[in-house]
């Protein structure tokens, strides 16, 4: 006896014989629901122009509707956290800066604040160093948001926005280059202060930029905000409300676009942010449009902070006075970036034995950090950047973990995209502003 659906069988002297008859294809195809079975699985990425870097999305589609998304990350994992454990505490900044390459100064800031907290010198950081840090972080926030605007514009079909965004960002990178010697991956913030003082020429450039950018911002807003295609592609797309954001750990502009004014610069200030006047922009739409509005408003708020920081800049030391922690070398920007200044080399090699010893000990061995662990978090352009640093009392970090907002926020892609159209996956993913260098570290 056979059940329906299986081949019929009978016992013979040669053994069991199955009778397989040809099914009628009409009945086979007719019994299948054409809608529910037209599923295709599309692999998008990791090399795809609109996934913001090496993000891979495995999409299950029914027609143009996305029924299932699985983000796959890890293609840019470079072992930064592991590498840190074999370098001294100062060298750590050169590694963390390479994590989220669009916001290198935030990585450095988070790491340096964690090391300083471990050392217990948070309050000893000079005012000028803190002001420079705030100034540069806000410039970096602007440049990061400009890249967001540029790439999102490109992904949604506004190619000219891409060109403009990158052009404006170049202004900021010039300022960074003038000060730290490098456009990206600066290693400019160091535990104890900043690597070197900000030159007058860079301050002039920043002042020019403060006049230049607001005009341009208005142009971009005029270009995009009234545009019907831009509105259609962003309004009501990839909605994630406050509950969803908190459950999934999404912070930053995405959380603020859903209405919660949670900004660590205000709620848990660091680096003296409590002394600056600025607003925390929010939106209530919780969609891509709201995130666009929040980011544009944040650029304007950052410009305000930059201006205040410039006014606050007073002459003074940029490094902590403790010579056991302060980087001993005098640095200078050369053609190939930042390095020891020639005068300093001449001094330690020719004149002062003590300086040479001090330089040698601190550069090769580094300083020791008392054992313990700290968690420091700062407001990164993409959300909360947390640095969990553990010391065992040695000259190297025992463990440093970076809670990168891109990594955590990317978990929200399924929640935002499932049930929507394929094109909205792009808009939603872009609105999270993931940077895979930070996500994968």
């Amino acid at each position: 006896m056979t059940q329906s659906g299986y081949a019929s069988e009978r016992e013979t002297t040669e053994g069991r014989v199955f009778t397989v008859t040809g099914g009628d294809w009409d009945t086979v195809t007719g019994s299948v629901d054409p809608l529910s079975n037209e599923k295709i699985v599309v692999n998008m990425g990791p090399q795809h122009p609109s996934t913001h870097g090496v993000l891979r999305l495995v999409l299950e589609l029914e027609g143009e509707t996305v029924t299932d998304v699985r983000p796959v990350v890890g293609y840019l994992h470079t072992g930064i956290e592991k590498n840190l454990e074999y370098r001294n505490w100062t060298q750590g900044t050169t590694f963390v800066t390479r994590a989220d390459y669009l916001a290198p100064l935030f990585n450095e800031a988070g790491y340096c604040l964690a090391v300083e907290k471990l050392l217990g010198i948070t309050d000893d950081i000079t005012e000028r160093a803190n002001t420079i840090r705030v100034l540069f972080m806000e410039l970096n926030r602007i440049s990061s948001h400009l890249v967001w605007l540029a790439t999102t514009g490109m992904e949604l079909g506004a190619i000219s926005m891409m060109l403009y965004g990158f052009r404006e960002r170049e202004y900021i990178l010039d300022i960074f280059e003038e000060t730290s010697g490098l456009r990206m991956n600066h290693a400019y913030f160091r535990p104890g202060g900043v690597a070197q003082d900000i030159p007058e020429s860079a301050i002039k450039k920043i002042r020019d930029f403060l006049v230049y950018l607001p005009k341009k911002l208005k142009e971009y807003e005029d270009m995009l905000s009234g545009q019907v295609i831009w509105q259609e592609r962003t309004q009501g797309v990839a909605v994630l409300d406050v509950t969803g954001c908190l459950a999934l750990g999404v912070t930053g502009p995405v959380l603020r676009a859903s209405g919660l004014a949670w900004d660590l610069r205000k709620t848990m200030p660091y680096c003296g942010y409590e002394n600056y006047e600025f607003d925390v922009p929010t939106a209530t739409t919780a969609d891509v449009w709201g995130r666009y509005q929040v980011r544009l408003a944040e650029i304007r708020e950052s410009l305000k902070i930059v201006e205040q920081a410039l006014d606050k800049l007073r002459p003074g030391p940029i490094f902590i006075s403790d010579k056991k922690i302060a980087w001993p070398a005098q640095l200078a920007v050369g053609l190939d970036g930042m390095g020891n200044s020639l005068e300093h080399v001449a001094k330690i090699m020719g004149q002062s034995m003590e300086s040479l010893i001090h330089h040698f000990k601190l550069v090769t061995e580094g300083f020791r950090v008392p054992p313990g662990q700290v968690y420091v978090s700062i407001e990164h352009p993409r959300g909360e950047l947390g640095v969990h640093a553990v010391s065992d009392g040695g000259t190297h970090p025992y463990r440093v973990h970076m809670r990168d907002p891109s990594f955590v926020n990317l978990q929200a892609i399924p929640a935002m995209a499932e049930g929507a159209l394929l094109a909205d996956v792009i808009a939603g993913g872009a609105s999270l502003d993931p940077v895979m260098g930070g996500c994968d570290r």
Partner: protein
Amino acid sequence: MTIEPNESTTEGVPVKAEPVGADIDAPAQVPSSPRKGMFGITGTGDVSGFGGLVRRHPEVVGTPKPYGGYFDEVTDALEEAYPGFADAIEKVVVDRGELTLHIKPERILEVAQIMRDDESLRFELCSSVSGVDYLNSDARRLHVTYHLTSMTFRRRVRLEAAVPAGGSLPSVTSVYPTADWQERETYDMFGVIFTGHPNLTRVLMPDDWEGFPQRKDYPLGGVPVEYKGAEIPPPDQRRVYQ
């Protein structure tokens, strides 16, 4: 493509080699203890006079009450809301202005639930989940740390649960869905198994990777140099200050 073991070397094609130290429980090499000497070398190489230097590992001791700040309110509220407090909390540590609750691993989910839901605690956001490997200094060497943030009260607290290598603890994804990828990362890097996790697979390393890279006994590997058979030793075997 699968490559059979002992396959003869063909030009330019890597042949299968046994992964060094990839076994989960028996690492091929344990790095020389950084607790002795100063330069990471053993034997006769160290003529600095620091060769006999022994650095003790600091014991993490519990902090006596009162803890100061909001820490007392947090611990009192937890004690009131959670009947198993005395059993679940191994110790309370206050260091550098941060509160750490060391929790028995099997109780972590219950504690997380109360930390999130109790009205006087309200730790709505699980900021970060990660791990630390305390090799040679703790028998339960793998510590999982949870950084919780209360947006209502603007507070932070760290939960820490210690498991031995190959150990497991309940996943908190049912309370904090954001812990999903972060627990996967902790599994990926340390091999801590989170029971009840919906999809505990590797997230950063490739799916077929063997071993857990962030463990302290994970072999680092050197770089061969094409000069008289020389090799740059792995970073933990170089002559460096420790």
